[in-house]
């Protein structure tokens, strides 16, 4: 189970992502409405993954990514964006985001991008599964 921080100024989008994240068996450890809130919450909740809106009041998602990457160089951040924001997606990736998801958000899209982000994670989990315990021998 992954700990996920959701950053979006839109309540309806946060609700949608929360529903899907919980359905996928992960835990929502925090929500933020602005980039600055995301930075403030990040350190205290130490999430495994952040879903980050790009266009927000106060501080946009790209600036928030830059700040979070300074706090944690291993942060895993996925941008959630609408069509037509390709330039901003590129800037986000340059800033350290590991991927992006185009709206509308669906169970399948979110599951896929989380899977891609945690290939290494799931692989090592599987390795543990494959290890034989003394009882198995």
């Amino acid at each position, binding site marked *: 189970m992954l700990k996920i921080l959701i950053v979006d100024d839109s*309540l*309806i*989008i946060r609700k949608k992502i929360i529903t899907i994240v919980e359905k996928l068996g992960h835990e929502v450890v925090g929500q933020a409405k602005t980039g600055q809130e995301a930075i403030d919450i990040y350190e205290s909740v130490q999430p495994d993954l952040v879903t980050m809106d790009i*266009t927000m009041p106060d501080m946009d998602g790209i600036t928030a990514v830059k700040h979070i990457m300074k706090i944690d160089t291993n942060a895993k951040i996925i941008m959630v*964006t609408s069509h*037509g924001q390709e330039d901003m997606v590129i800037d986000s990736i340059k800033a350290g985001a590991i991927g992006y998801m185009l*709206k*509308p958000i669906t169970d399948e899209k979110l599951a896929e991008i989380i899977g891609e982000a945690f290939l290494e994670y799931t692989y090592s989990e599987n390795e543990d599964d494959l290890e034989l315990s003394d009882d198995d021998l």
Partner: protein
Amino acid sequence: MILDSLILQSKLFFTEDMGIEIDDIAREEDSVDLNLKSHTAMIGVGGELNMMVVISFDDTMLDKLVEVFMEGEDVASEEEEEIKESVTGEVINTIIGLALPTFPKRGKGVTITPPISINDASNIKKHKDSKIVSANIRTHFGELSMSAIIAKDASK
């Protein structure tokens, strides 16, 4: 051209993503002002193409959109207004995002502002060097208007 893009993407969004059939679309190419309905949101598009896009819903249309976005889940009364604002913002954001690549003379480095909700205005008047192009879209669930306030020479 800008209005054509907005109408096309609105049609696709409402019919395909929201499952709401459109009954009629009335265009207005050079309005003096915008008459706003109960719930309005606007987004600024920056860069070479400097414009403001405004979407305005009547109550019944917005109620239907909230129902679709919430996928049947109940809305708590204390969250109702924020949910409505949020849905209005998401709708305009999505339509602009889809229409943007088809806008003429958009250039590079296009920026989109976060959606702004307008609650108490009843109309917006154009500046002398600007032009308002609008489409009034009628559905079974009510009406919405989609308008762009643009420089006079940018509407082609």
